[in-house]
């Protein structure tokens, strides 16, 4: 029986109809083979639009539906559901995109209309070959994996755990807390960072539903939404966490000191060390690269002095497989290393600091005990703060890092507060971006504290004095773009507001989880506006700055969003899995086993008895690698089989030609 196809061409307001003659496309479609009805409508995705389809299915006995509108990545599901409501199997539907791929990109209306006609013809031709398919329903494992234990990961883990679901939390470092634990105060409220982050970190440690794994990384992920298996590698800490009481005697007795990463190189740490007394867990960690015992086999001062006998040099790397239904990625950000931007003199002049270093200078447990001091121990009389270092810069990062203006204002205030009102503070900015709640107010407040703002990106920081006043100082050379004249400002200290950027291993981590990175290097969300926490991979969500620069409130809100999405899957307990997987026709398969080696998911097995290959549908992801290669044509992807693709091609390869208008009489 020939199919009865309904074709629906959308105007999308004027988004499509402004360039494509939607009515003409529908008229053209009505003349195509097997088309029972073709209509155009203002907004197909609206309720009346969908109702039109449902009504036609019921009243006209349509057996196939084609919608020509926006990208199927937006509304394919909407229309599939409409078909289903009308009583039609959702796979007897085909959508073609005449907006993103046509009306928005083809300049000439006649050409755009012709292209839309071709696309509709291809969809109509293809839909003839569609078959009924049924989604599989699979259970969702109730546990969730959270990767990264910064403030975002902490928020996500707590939200999920408090709903009663179990969370496996994997943190690469020795403690959770992330960058926030390096700060002293946070803008715009000037809350003490530790006072607001410590209770959350402790809550993680005390939450019975959270299995916290530090010194750990996920090395492999297998499975699919609802049923992921993650392999976690835990590096040795060389201290037994169950025995250690966190007294810190080992750190006192350890004879070996090296520069501290946590102090951003400004202070030292021992070979056995801990970021801060508030670390969670508060067990120190022995760094195998600097520990004398682990390198040379002698010393053991910590072991002799540990009152709990917790030091264990025999600890080995270990692996653990966990089963989870969903995954939240919260791996955070790195800051840009300003050394290559040699004009700012970082690494050359001792008094040029990064933002994170300046945070440590302010931190009560930092290298200066929270006093803003130069390397010579004196307080700076004048400080220049350079905004947008590596941000909004075509040669580094085009984007705005979203936090630098605000933490610069925080530093302005802290300098005035700690060094004294006489201290002179100069901000070199491009634009002030104070968009958050309470941010503009904070800006105003800092302005009133007597801070100087100079609009212009400095050309260089130099120690070459040109006058008496500049002797022994750092000179910031810039153009004040508001006054249109060059300025030279001599200061004691320079702080660089370096860009937030993607973790340097972001692309490798993305690969482990099967997500992508955007052009800026951060993990790519499913949709920039409507899907900022989900990814293209079902069951994997993003939280915090791994998706792009954010301040703490935004990172926390984003994380709660990711947790909510993971929870909605976990709470529902089941997920429907697309039936568009591969199938091997046993009557055609010649048993060459070509496909077995091609399948990246080991979903194909050879049936010795029947001497043909068989697909395990639960493991097949529908990538089509087998079908693309099968020499006999036995392996076919459902919904993307040979007949369907051939039919689509037949529609597509029609040639577009300008023709002479037929005489009016011919049209009737």
């Amino acid at each position, binding site marked *: 029986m020939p199919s009865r196809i309904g074709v629906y061409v959308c105007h999308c307001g004027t988004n499509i109809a402004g360039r494509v003659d939607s009515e003409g496309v529908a008229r*053209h479609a009505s*003349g*195509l083979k097997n088309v029972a009805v073709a209509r155009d409508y203002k907004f197909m995705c609206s309720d009346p639009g969908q109702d039109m389809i449902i009504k036609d299915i019921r009243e006209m006995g349509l057996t196939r539906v084609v919608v020509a509108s926006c*990208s199927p*990545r937006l509304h394919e599901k909407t229309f599939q559901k409409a078909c289903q409501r009308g009583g039609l199997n959702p796979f007897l539907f085909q959508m073609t*995109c005449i*907006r*993103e*791929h046509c009306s*928005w*990109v*083809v300049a000439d209306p*006649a*050409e*755009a209309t*012709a*292209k839309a*006609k*071709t*696309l509709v*013809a*291809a969809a109509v031709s293809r839909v003839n070959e569609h078959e009924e398919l049924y989604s599989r329903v699979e259970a969702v494992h109730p546990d969730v994996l959270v990767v990264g234990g910064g403030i975002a990961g902490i928020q996500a883990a707590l939200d999920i755990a408090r709903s009663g679901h179990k969370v496996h939390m994997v943190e690469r470092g020795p403690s959770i807390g992330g960058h926030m634990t390096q700060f002293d105060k946070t803008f715009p409220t000037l809350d003490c960072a530790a006072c607001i982050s410590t209770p959350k970190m402790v809550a993680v440690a005390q939450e019975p539903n959270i299995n916290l794994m530090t010194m750990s990384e996920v090395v492999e992920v297998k499975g699919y939404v609802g049923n992921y298996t993650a392999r976690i590698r835990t590096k040795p800490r060389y201290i037994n966490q169950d025995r250690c009481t966190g007294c810190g005697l080992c750190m006192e007795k350890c004879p070996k000191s090296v520069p501290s990463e946590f102090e951003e190189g400004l202070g030292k740490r021992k070979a056995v060390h801990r970021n801060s007394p508030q670390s969670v867990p508060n067990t120190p960690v022995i760094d195998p690269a600097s520990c004398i015992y682990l390198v040379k086999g002698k010393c053991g001062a910590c072991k002799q002095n540990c009152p709990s006998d917790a030091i264990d040099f025999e600890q080995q790397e270990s692996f653990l497989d966990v089963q989870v239904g969903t995954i939240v990625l919260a791996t955070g950000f790195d800051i840009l290393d300003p050394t290559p931007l040699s004009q700012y003199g970082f690494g050359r002049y001792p008094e040029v600091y990064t933002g994170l270093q300046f945070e440590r200078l302010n931190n009560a447990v930092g290298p200066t005990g929270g006093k803003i001091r130069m390397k010579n121990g004196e307080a700076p009389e004048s400080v220049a703060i350079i905004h947008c270092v590596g941000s909004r810069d075509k040669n580094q990062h085009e984007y705005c890092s979203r936090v630098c203006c605000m933490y610069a204002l925080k530093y302005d205030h802290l300098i005035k507060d700690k060094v004294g009102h006489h201290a002179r503070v100069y901000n070199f900015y491009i634009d002030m971006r104070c968009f958050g709640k309470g941010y503009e107010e904070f800006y105003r407040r800092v302005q009133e504290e007597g801070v100087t703002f100079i609009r212009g990106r400095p050309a260089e920081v130099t120690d070459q004095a040109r006058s008496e006043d500049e002797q022994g100082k750092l000179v910031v050379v810039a153009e004040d773009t508001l006054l249109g004249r060059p300025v030279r400002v001599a200061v004691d200290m320079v702080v660089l507001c370096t860009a937030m950027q993607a973790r340097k291993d972001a692309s490798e981590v*993305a690969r482990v989880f*099967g997500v*992508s990175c*955007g*052009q800026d290097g951060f993990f*790519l969300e499913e949709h920039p506006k409507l899907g900022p926490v989900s990814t*293209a*991979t079902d069951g994997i969500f993003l939280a915090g700055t791994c998706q792009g620069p954010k301040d703490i409130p935004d990172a926390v809100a984003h994380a709660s969003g990711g947790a909510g999405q993971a929870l909605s899957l976990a709470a529902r307990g089941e997920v429907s899995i697309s039936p*568009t997987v591969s199938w091997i026709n046993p009557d055609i398969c010649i048993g060459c086993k070509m496909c077995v080696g*091609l399948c*990246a*998911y080991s979903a194909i097995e050879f049936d010795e008895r029947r001497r043909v290959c068989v697909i395990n549908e639960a493991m097949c992801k*529908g*990538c*089509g*690698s087998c*079908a*693309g*290669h099968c020499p006999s044509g036995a392996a076919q*992807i459902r919904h*993307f089989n*040979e007949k369907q*693709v*051939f039919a*689509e*091609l037949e529609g*597509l*390869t*029609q*040639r*577009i*030609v*300008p*023709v*002479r*208008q*037929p005489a009016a009489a*011919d049209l009737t």
Partner: protein
Amino acid sequence: MQELIVTPEAQGEPMPGAAFEPAIVAFVCNWCTYTAADLAGTSRMVQSPNVRLVRMMCTGMVDPKYIIKALLGGADAVLISGCHPGDCHYINGNYKARRRVKLLMEILPRFGIDSRRIKLTWVGASEGNEFAATVNSFAAEIKELGPIDTRRLPLL
């Protein structure tokens, strides 16, 4: 007014002397290049109308038969585009595509099809500008190359 119609269904005669408008079929993967095409659209990047997409789940799904079918069925050229090496949503489908396309490019010239009519590119999900540039440059190359003449191919 002059209207553009699609043949063969359309009646009427091609205007003599009308410029050659190639038909180019692009097999693109859903996860990267199709997404990039959406982004190019959302960003209103003007593109040649000659390229029409076939949405595949992965380039690893593109059976060489499909490419040959497109060329014999009237396409003047075929573009295959997916995720960058290492970024394939299905681990390594794009490597398989790369191997198949390479072989095809060696074989097709023996049957009289210029290998320049096939192009394989990697365009990531965020590279809308890259997508538009690829479409426009490929369309220009094929316009230069002229129409495919399948009737003269020894294959048939």
